[in-house]
């Protein structure tokens, strides 16, 4: 398939209406999903809810391998498969739904910059804690990541994934960081977000954008997930306006359906406290 053909297919896809059976795929909620994947998945769910597009959440043990980019979550709409928040936003935009249309160029650039910040800091920190911190790796990541696989595949796949993440950390210069330095980075990131948010309900005043979805996905997951220690959560908890921001989005977009899918399911995460 050439790029032209791909583009053609997505053009056609754009013309089609949002189907009833749109689905979001992520790893198993109870025993498999990791902090970073849950954060990314929640961000996409929040984004779709903000766009008012219904989407069923489907949990599959092999979601990571089903995804065209190898990363979760991905959405299956019609016969299109799109993974991760960035491409999903593009895809939804092609279908005529956008949250950032009302912004001017400067604001758009600012939004993109903040999204990069969240991806580079929060997501990377989550990956670091999961795969590079020995205690977390042993107690949480290893048993959860390997849960669907039989022996000896469980060891091999964990080792493979760990090696891949560690190589990535080396490439971006995080390999030599200590856990405290990583927490410090998270703190700085939260501080920047907190300052930008200020007293507004959303980052760009009244209306939520994809940045809000992304920040919500990460912060809410960090706040509600029990790790080996509470340090990461404490870093976020210092910022009152960010917690209120999470509560607001949860209340506006997830509360009505709390009983069925998405954030409601968060409470079923092991030892995960609720924000209510």
């Amino acid at each position, binding site marked *: *398939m050439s790029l032209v053909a791909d583009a053609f*297919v997505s053009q056609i896809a754009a013309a089609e209406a949002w189907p009833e059976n749109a689905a979001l795929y992520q790893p198993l909620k109870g025993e498999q999903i990791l902090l970073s994947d849950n954060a990314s998945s929640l961000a996409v769910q929040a984004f779709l809810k903000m766009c008012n597009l219904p989407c069923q959440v489907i949990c599959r*043990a*092999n979601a990571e391998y*089903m995804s065209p980019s190898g990363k979760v979550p991905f959405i*299956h709409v019609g016969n299109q*498969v799109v993974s991760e928040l960035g491409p999903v936003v593009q895809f939804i935009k092609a279908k005529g739904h956008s949250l950032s249309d009302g912004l001017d160029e400067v604001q758009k650039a600012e939004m993109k910059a903040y999204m990069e910040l969240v991806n580079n800091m929060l997501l990377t920190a989550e990956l670091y804690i999961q795969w590079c911190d020995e205690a977390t790796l042993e107690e949480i990541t290893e048993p959860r990541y390997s849960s669907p696989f*039989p022996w000896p*595949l469980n060891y091999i796949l964990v080792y493979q994934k760990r090696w891949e993440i560690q190589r990535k950390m080396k490439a971006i210069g995080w390999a030599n960081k200590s856990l405290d330095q990583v927490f410090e980075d998270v703190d700085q990131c939260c501080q920047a977000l907190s300052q930008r948010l200020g007293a507004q309900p959303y980052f760009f005043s009244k209306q939520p954008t994809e940045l809000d979805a992304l920040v919500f996905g990460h912060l809410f997951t960090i706040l509600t997930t029990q790790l080996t220690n509470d340090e990461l959560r404490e870093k976020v908890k210092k910022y009152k306006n960010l917690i209120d921001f999470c509560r607001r989005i949860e209340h506006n977009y997830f509360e009505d359906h709390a009983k069925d899918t998405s954030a409601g399911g968060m409470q079923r995460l092991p030892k995960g406290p609720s924000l209510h």
Partner: protein
Amino acid sequence: MGTVHARSLDPLPAAGPDIGFVVGDDAELVEVEPETRQEVLENKDVVVQHVHFDGLGRTKDDFIVYEIGEVFKAKNLIDVMRKSHEAREKLLRLGIFRQVEVLIDTCEGDDALPNGIDVTFEVTELRRVTGSYNTMVGNNEGSMVLGIKLPNLCGRAEKMTFQFSYGTKETSYGLSFFKPQPGNFERNFSVNLYKVTGQFPWSSLRETDRGISTEISFPIWKTSHTLKWEGVWRELGCLSRTASFSIREESGHSLKSSLSHTMAIDTRNSSILPRKGALLKINQELAGYTGGDVSFLKEDFELQLNKRLIWDSVLSASLWGGMLVPIGEKPSSIADRFYLGGPTSIRGFSMYSIGPQSEGDYLGGEAYWAGGLHLYTPLPFRPGQGGFGDLFRTHFFLNAGNLCNLNYGEGPKAHLRKLAECIRWSYGAGIVLRLGNIARLELNYCIPMGVQSGDRICDGVQFGAGIRFL
């Protein structure tokens, strides 16, 4: 009494019983040197006193003794020659000698009996390491294949082979160790370690297998049996972004650990273009009881009957069938199911393009059968007879078969009805070329019939190459 040389015969070709090498017919190959005195050798009683080996290096004596033991039992000269010849064939089959020559002479020395005979085997051992290097092009991919073979590793016909293929897209390797039982080459044991990557465009699927297998082969009466354990880590993925969602759902890792048993009776005179004989092969595989996360029971069989008719033509009938029963809740994996269609099975259909499919990607089926009826004749007007022309045959064929999924709750009657519904069949004619004794090429004109919606056909000329044919 003169010296009789059993002349060294031409090296055996790459195995295969069709080379018309019947023991006993070789009297004409024995040259008796001109003698003044004529003697009738057949009735002359002799005693084989010694058997010598020249040229043995790392091969162990005790291992050789099993192969030549029969020579001592010979009672007359013809018998000696026949038994020596058999011993020579056995030695060559071990795959450890490059050359074996037999020399029969009267016995000399103090303890020599008047009718004593010495048999000398002059052998040349294969080198410790042999290597090969070649390049292959196919499937939109070029690759370089490097092979290393260590024959006769420990002196008892053990063999270690290593093959490494480095391609523009995929890398594969295989390491295998083979050990026969001394004196009984058919009873052997082998261990394999491998990584193979396959791309299956008909399913938009890509599969990487990394595995280890051990197998024991042994003959019982006229049948040969193989018991095998295989542990394989399979990684499935989509070949392209446009693969159907059903294929995407199969993506990921699985571990299959299975025990299998194969029984085969083969009385054919050649495996590629047989003139007579029959083949029956039954294979069963049980996965899941020895570990892994894949559980199923798989049975399949292959039957082929050949009958020689007038004018060198051969009528050949074959029947294949198989069934896969998943055990437990989990549905069967696309990597375990059966596929049908293509120039090597049901001609006139595209490769593996029959049966259940999703958006043009074939998913395979849990049960299948296929039958074929062929009439092979020599080429019209028989050009190149007795030489190159004998590698070719014309054939007329009729193929039929079906592939589907069964609902295992329904019982055998419903299954048979399902397999009898929507039968695909095809007929046509073409030319077959035999490539050595391992593969064949076919160029056919096919007319597919009974085509169901979703099947991909190849109406008209179809080219096929393969090692297993319906």
